[in-house]
């Protein structure tokens, strides 16, 4: 049967099912196929904090959204064009997001009265007009998958569990995805259980064949590869890129890496990943608590290792005192905060940017630390080695602020040529630095960094600690003038990091924008998508993104003052806006949402439109005043 092929420029697909249905795996595989095919893409997994909430209930629904296109993709997509729902709860939890006219693929197998009731449906939505706005394909995916794997000797339960592979096969046919990678992946994943591997592949192929041969799918779709700069690419999540960035920083500095960490969502994958790379001289220490995680990292840093401690917001709160000690000791240390919804336990699996002020000020005394924030999953690689560079060069703890959206989201990454990455020079102290001998708190005149002098070098024996230290000697000092000098010096040292920050890139293609959209961290993609929509509607708008939150880029004040209106969307209640207003006396406007989800481009386009309108009204008021 020859089927029609329709060309599309972009598609957003959401896979939704029970936590145990393998939706994350299905999404990952579809993503990998899409990446291999050459589309640009962005993904957003969304799962509950509970490992296995009761089957068939709304709290147990797990989903994975993927946006792919023949052009540059900036976000995981506002609304899905295609929803794959594996049970009634998954349908109920997600169908409101599906755009009108969208494709709905539903596994009808579990639409029993009991399961419908469990999902809160009073009647079966597959019957009647509830879903009339969509192209509905209600198919017994579970039954078809079970039939396809008959003869592989699987139990009924195991056979039905291949339904996600059937769905993946069907969707892979619909969008012409390459399948070899998935087959190879399944073979490797179940290498020790060849019959399970064979059954999953059979179910996957059956799904493809079902699309190709049945009447219910008359059309398949084609999304052409996106033009991308030449190079070698892979798909990568933020946590994986961050872990690789840590490994790379070790290699680039020639230092052994030490990670001290305590398991915490959504940062644990950094610990898991680094634990696998011991052959790079990486030591991981799963500590008894957050405090010991950073304490051991500090001990390793004092001993000359490149030390990291990875955590999320609640862990940062516990590490604060040790970070303060690192400020006093002036040793290199990177604390990774993969932010999640707060306060307290908050929303462990959801994203937020509300730890900026904690990173900035969450310690006793004047305890400044540089702060770096990656802006996309792949950018976590560069941000991690940038944080390490600052820590080592300036002898200071550094906060690296990722978040749950970056951590679990993925995008294509142009793999760097590692030989071209900038080296990090640890420059250990190797002898006396003053005519009188070794002064542990004598400073580099440019960076104000003190020597890094791990134990083991004769003649440099010295004692340091958290008590205020005399300038130069580092001996205990309670002298008022000395304390004032040391507090100011530590601040000046962090301020001096600004000299190595590149100029702020402002995207203002027409040069006549009156509004600047300014963001930090993971909002870069959504803001860019909103800006793109606004421009398409004829509103000139500029965009800039802050990567170094402390110190801020030296040119940022000038950039802000160039625009009549500066709008800062943040997934908090205006933390960067507060800092900018205090620092530059610019009337920055916030746009704040804390829903545990990234911004959608539509709403940001709307925000831009409202500010544009407000500026026009302001002009009119000024004009009428002048006429009067």
């Amino acid at each position: 049967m020859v089927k029609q092929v329709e060309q599309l420029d972009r598609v957003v697909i959401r896979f939704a099912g029970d936590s145990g249905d393998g939706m994350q795996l299905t999404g990952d595989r579809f993503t990998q196929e899409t990446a291999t095919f050459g589309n640009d893409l962005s993904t957003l997994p969304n799962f509950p904090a509970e490992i296995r909430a009761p089957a068939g209930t709304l709290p147990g629904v797990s989903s994975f959204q993927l946006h792919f296109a023949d052009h540059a993709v900036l976000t995981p997509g506002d609304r899905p064009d295609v929803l794959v729902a594996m049970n009634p709860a998954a349908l109920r939890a997600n169908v409101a997001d599906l755009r009108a006219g969208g494709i709905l693929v539903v596994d009808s197998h579990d639409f029993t009265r009991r399961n419908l009731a469990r999902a809160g449906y009073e009647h079966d939505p597959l019957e009647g007009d509830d879903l009339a706005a969509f192209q509905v394909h209600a198919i017994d995916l579970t039954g078809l998958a079970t039939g396809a794997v008959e003869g592989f000797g699987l139990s009924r339960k195991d056979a039905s569990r291949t339904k996600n592979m059937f769905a993946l096969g069907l969707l892979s046919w619909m969008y012409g995805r390459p399948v070899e990678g998935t087959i190879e992946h399944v073979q490797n994943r179940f290498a020790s259980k060849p019959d399970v591997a064979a059954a999953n592949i059979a179910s996957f192929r059956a799904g493809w064949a079902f699309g190709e041969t049945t009447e219910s799918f008359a059309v398949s779709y084609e999304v052409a590869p996106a033009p991308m700069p030449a190079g070698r690419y892979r798909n990568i999540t933020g946590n994986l890129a961050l872990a690789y960035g840590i490994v790379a920083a070790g290699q680039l500095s020639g230092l052994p890496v030490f990670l001290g960490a305590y398991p915490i969502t959504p940062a644990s994958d950094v610990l898991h990943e680094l634990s696998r790379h011991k052959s790079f001289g990486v030591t991981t220490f799963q500590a008894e608590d957050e405090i010991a995680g950073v304490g051991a990292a500090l001990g390793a840093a004092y001993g000359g290792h490149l030390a990291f401690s990875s955590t999320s917001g609640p862990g940062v709160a516990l590490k604060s005192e040790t970070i303060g000690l690192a400020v006093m000791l002036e040793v290199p240390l990177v604390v990774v905060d993969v932010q999640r919804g707060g306060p307290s336990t908050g929303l462990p699996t959801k994203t937020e940017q509300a730890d900026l002020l904690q990173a900035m000020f969450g310690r006793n005394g004047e305890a400044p630390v540089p702060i770096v924030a990656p802006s996309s999953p792949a950018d976590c690689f560069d941000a991690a080695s940038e944080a390490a560079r600052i820590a080592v060069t300036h002898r200071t703890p550094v906060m690296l602020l990722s978040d749950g959206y970056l951590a679990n989201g993925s995008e294509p990454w142009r793999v760097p040529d590692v030989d071209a990455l900038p080296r990090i020079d640890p420059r250990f102290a190797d002898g006396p630095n003053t005519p009188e001998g070794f002064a542990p708190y004598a400073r580099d005149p440019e960076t104000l960094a003190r020597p890094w002098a791990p134990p083991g070098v004769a003649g440099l024996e010295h004692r340091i600690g958290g008590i205020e230290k005399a300038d130069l000697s580092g001996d205990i000092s309670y002298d008022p003038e000395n304390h004032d000098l040391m507090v100011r010096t530590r601040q000046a040292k962090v301020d001096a990091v600004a000299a190595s920050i590149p100029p702020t890139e402002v995207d203002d293609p027409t040069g006549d924008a009156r509004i600047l959209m300014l963001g930090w961290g993971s909002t870069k993609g959504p803001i860019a998508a909103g800006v793109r929509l606004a421009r398409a509607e004829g509103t000139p708008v500029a965009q800039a993104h802050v990567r170094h939150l402390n110190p801020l880029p030296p040119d940022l004040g000038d950039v802000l003052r160039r625009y009549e209106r500066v709008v800062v969307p943040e997934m908090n209640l205006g933390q960067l806006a507060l800092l900018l207003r205090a620092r530059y006396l610019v009337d920055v406007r916030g746009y704040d949402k804390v829903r545990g989800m990234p911004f959608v481009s539509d709403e940001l386009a709307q925000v831009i439109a409202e500010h544009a309108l407000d500026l026009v009204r302001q002009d009119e008021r000024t004009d009428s005043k002048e006429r009067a």
Partner: protein
Amino acid sequence: MTSTDLPMPVLARDGLAGVPTTDAEQSRKEFASDQEVRWCPGCGDYAVLAAVQGFLPELGLRRENICFVSGIGCSSRFPYYLDTYGLHSIHGRAPAIATGLATARPDLSVWVVTGDGDALSIGGNHLVHALRRNVNLTILLFNNRIYGLTKGQYSPTSEIGLVTKSTPMGSVDTPFNPVSLALGAEATFVARTVDSDRKHLTAVLREAAAHRGASLVEIYQNCPIFNDGAFDAVKDADQREEAVIPLVHGEPIRFGAGGRHGVVRSASGGVEVVDVPDDADDAWLARLLVHDAHADDPTQAFALSRLTDAGHLQRAPIGIFRQVERPTYDDLTRQQVETAIGTSGPGDLQSLVDGPDTWTVG
């Protein structure tokens, strides 16, 4: 999950293996820093400092390969007074910081100096985990049964009823027995000594430093300002013979004038002090417990630790309770890194970032 073959235990007396030594003659003076010592007159810490400064040259280690890490409290000022590397950290966290340092640097002799408040109250979690991991550290726990630096509040080792600034009607907290706690935390080396007994203190330090793994040394230390006389029973020349139960590996446990007391197994499964009759024959004497610090089973060491008075101290066992071999956390951790490098060669960054699933554009 697959199991991993653990290597044979390294000899537990290899505590300083891997730390560079020197042939040069070292003196006590070389280990004294130029800092003025600022403890109260009469503080037991002076005696411990003198003993440590006097003992370190005996090890013959290069001075730059010794590091003292401390927490917060009177005793935690210790590192400032030694001309080695030193890190005066934050309250309770010294064992955690030292764990990182010892794991990162097998060429260092790492010492932790802590007190009863620092180690057992705010830092209790880190202490028990350092002990169970058996990190190669020598931990000196100065126990004065009081908070000194904050001027006299009761500590987690203070006796019930102790009247202090924060307990004007007497403390109602049950105290920790640090030796029992350490044994319960799977410690491989646990000892107790007394600040004023220089000879015994030095002998215990010698064994502790030689032990590969976490060595916990509880040092009874007098605070002359806030808890003076807390350990008089074991320090005072007139009382100590009756108060100190000496633990010597391989020896029957007997003390008091003329050895008139002994330790035997009790009906309850523990141990107890009994009087040795003047006419005790060999059969009777065979009932006396022979101290075995090397027993794999810590039960007897624990039972002995319970002979310590929890209230005002009248009697306490002194000596090495337990000294057994077990692989150390830091050795095993470094071995895993070496094994990984040995098996697959040093990691190649380019192939790591490339990963298995790449595609090429252009």
